[in-house]
């Protein structure tokens, strides 16, 4: 280039540095969360006497554990919706698939302690089946179960995503297809012939790894495990969106054709994040089932999948922290309202969604940022 047109490169074109994984405040908050999950909550639940004001009740442990599973789903939703701009209304399916894989293992763990004292799960005895169907083959191995928790939702997501993204299905059409997918799965799982407990699903779990499930210690263990998974996934998601990979995803969201003309093929990018997101949901489902003690096709209902999107929207899309907060706010409100004013819950959910869309498009996190910005 000639000197006339381009001034010689000044010695100091200051290039912005890549942002750290978390800011200092971020790391502090993360450390606090880690402390609460691993030390404070077990302490308050197991060692503070029941009468004390500081005692964390078993009910609360169960509730928080459940909400943390939901928070993992919200985080997964944020990766695919908030960062990549692909709204999935079928994430409940992946959650349920992970849950069912875990449920099958827990059913086998019941052994002969079921109502019919049979080696087979109760519902199979009830249906007069004589042996386990083929897809139950690996269900007595815990290791195989752990693998399948990742592989089943991952494989379903990969195959579905490959064809959907290859056909360049976008926007609302993609959302509708995911909704149809989870509805089709719901119908399939409702059938007794599917061999997964029909509309009752699985319940009455007794043991995991040979240890009884319904003890305070086991509940706390699952709680801590869920908390660590959530925090681990948060850091991983943070790393993903901070990498160039994450910036390509945002670029796909904002101007996909430009991404293509930059020489990127968006298909593997979308497929990767879509599969990661589905696997996260599957793991959340697998953690959810032993804590809640039941899994049935209701988890695949269209409303369940839409709720995941509501949590992400309420918390604030493309913030990672937001959807986690959103899952806690909405589900906290849900468990309070369904006890106090059971008939108002759905009205509240609807009103919340409208309010967020109208006045808080960036969600709770966006609102906090705005207030801070106004003060500064």
């Amino acid at each position: 280039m000639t000197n006339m047109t381009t001034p010689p490169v000044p010695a100091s074109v200051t290039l912005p540095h890549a942002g750290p994984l978390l800011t200092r405040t971020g790391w502090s908050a993360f450390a606090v969360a880690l402390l609460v999950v691993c030390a404070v909550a077990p302490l308050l639940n197991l060692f503070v006497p029941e009468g004390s004001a500081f005692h964390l009740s078993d009910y609360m442990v169960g509730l928080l554990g459940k909400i943390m599973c939901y928070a993992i789903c919200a985080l997964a939703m944020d990766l695919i919706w908030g960062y990549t701009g692909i709204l999935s209304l079928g994430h409940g399916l992946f959650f349920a698939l992970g849950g069912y894989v875990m449920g099958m293992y827990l059913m086998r763990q019941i052994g002969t302690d079921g109502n019919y004292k049979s080696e087979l799960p109760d519902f199979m005895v009830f249906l007069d089946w004589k042996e386990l169907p083929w897809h139950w083959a690996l269900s007595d191995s815990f290791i195989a179960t752990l693998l399948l928790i990742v592989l089943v939702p991952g494989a379903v997501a990969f195959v579905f995503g490959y064809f959907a993204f290859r056909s360049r299905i976008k926007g609302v059409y993609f959302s509708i297809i995911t909704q149809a997918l989870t509805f089709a799965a719901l119908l399939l799982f409702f059938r007794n012939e599917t061999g997964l407990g029909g509309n009752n699903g699985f319940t009455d779990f007794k043991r995991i790894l040979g240890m009884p499930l319904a003890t305070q210690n086991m509940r706390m263990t699952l709680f801590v495990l869920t908390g660590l998974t959530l925090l681990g996934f948060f850091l991983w998601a943070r790393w993903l969106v901070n990498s160039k990979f994450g910036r390509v995803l945002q670029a796909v969201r904002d101007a996909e054709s430009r991404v293509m003309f930059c020489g990127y093929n968006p298909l593997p990018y979308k497929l990767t994040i879509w599969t990661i997101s589905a696997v996260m949901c599957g793991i959340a489902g697998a953690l959810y089932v032993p804590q809640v003690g039941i899994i049935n096709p209701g988890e695949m209902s269209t409303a369940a999948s839409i709720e995941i999107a509501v949590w992400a929207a309420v918390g604030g899309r493309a913030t990672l922290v937001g959807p986690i907060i959103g899952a806690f706010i909405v589900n906290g409100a849900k468990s309070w309202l369904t006890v106090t004013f059971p008939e108002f819950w759905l009205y509240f959910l609807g009103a919340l969604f409208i309010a967020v869309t109208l006045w808080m498009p960036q969600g709770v996190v966006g609102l906090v940022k705005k207030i801070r910005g106004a003060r500064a």
Partner: protein
Amino acid sequence: MTPDLMEEGAQRYEKLQTAGVLGRTESGGRTAAYGRIHTPGEVDTTHGRILYLEDVHVSFDGFKAINGLSLDIAPGELRCIIGPNGAGKTTMMDIITGKTRPDSGHVFFGSTIDLLRYREPEIAALGIGRKFQKPTVFEQLSVYENLELALATDKRVRHSMVFRPSGEEKDRLGEVLTTIHLADSAARLAGNLSHGQKQWLEIGMLLMQDPKLLLLDEPVAGMTDEETERTAQLFLSLKGKHSLMVVEHDMSFIRTISEKVTVLCDGSVLAEGTLDEVQADERVIEVYLGR
């Protein structure tokens, strides 16, 4: 080669000869390449042409957007394309970049790469960069991040996950930031730039890819006079190193940068020559002033 193909080729050759096209190309009308090693994926410009469109037809629902378009561009050339609305300028760029498939015709990049066999990202990787009519930058990313995404490097997922720019790549980023006068705004969100600055950023993103051929659709639309002037200088400095195809309406801008202008009308070439020549052409005056 089958006899009917030979027949067809001979007829086409004769047609071009009678039209007087053959003598005008820089390869002097030679018709075959002898004794050269052909590297796949490499742009072969030994025939003096980097882009070659021949008899391209496209119609949308019966409307003939491109109707027998033939056009070629030399390596290092800066070619301006003008023409009334609906002349097929943007469609032509869509075809070259793989966005639209022509119904018939040939589109070659160099002598050996048949562009019709590739998809958008592959064409971009071959070395054709495109700037859209409406500036499209990634608004939620910073100026720096926009350029970094466009950087010519391995664009696969695994590589993107662990990518850190090397020292050389950082120099290149700094160089382009300076070239497009956005060195002070590197950390700003691209969405907060002015319209003209977005145009510049988009041109910068093209430069990051180090393309052999740049397609620029109305690059100075919405720019101030000063920005237009700078853009003209930038393009003149790129000429020679890159081939440029510029679609523009701003005649004074074209006068500053171009040596050769092609006028498109109704999906085919109406006239070609210097700006003064085509402006003197009666058919051009007619389509611009109305019939």
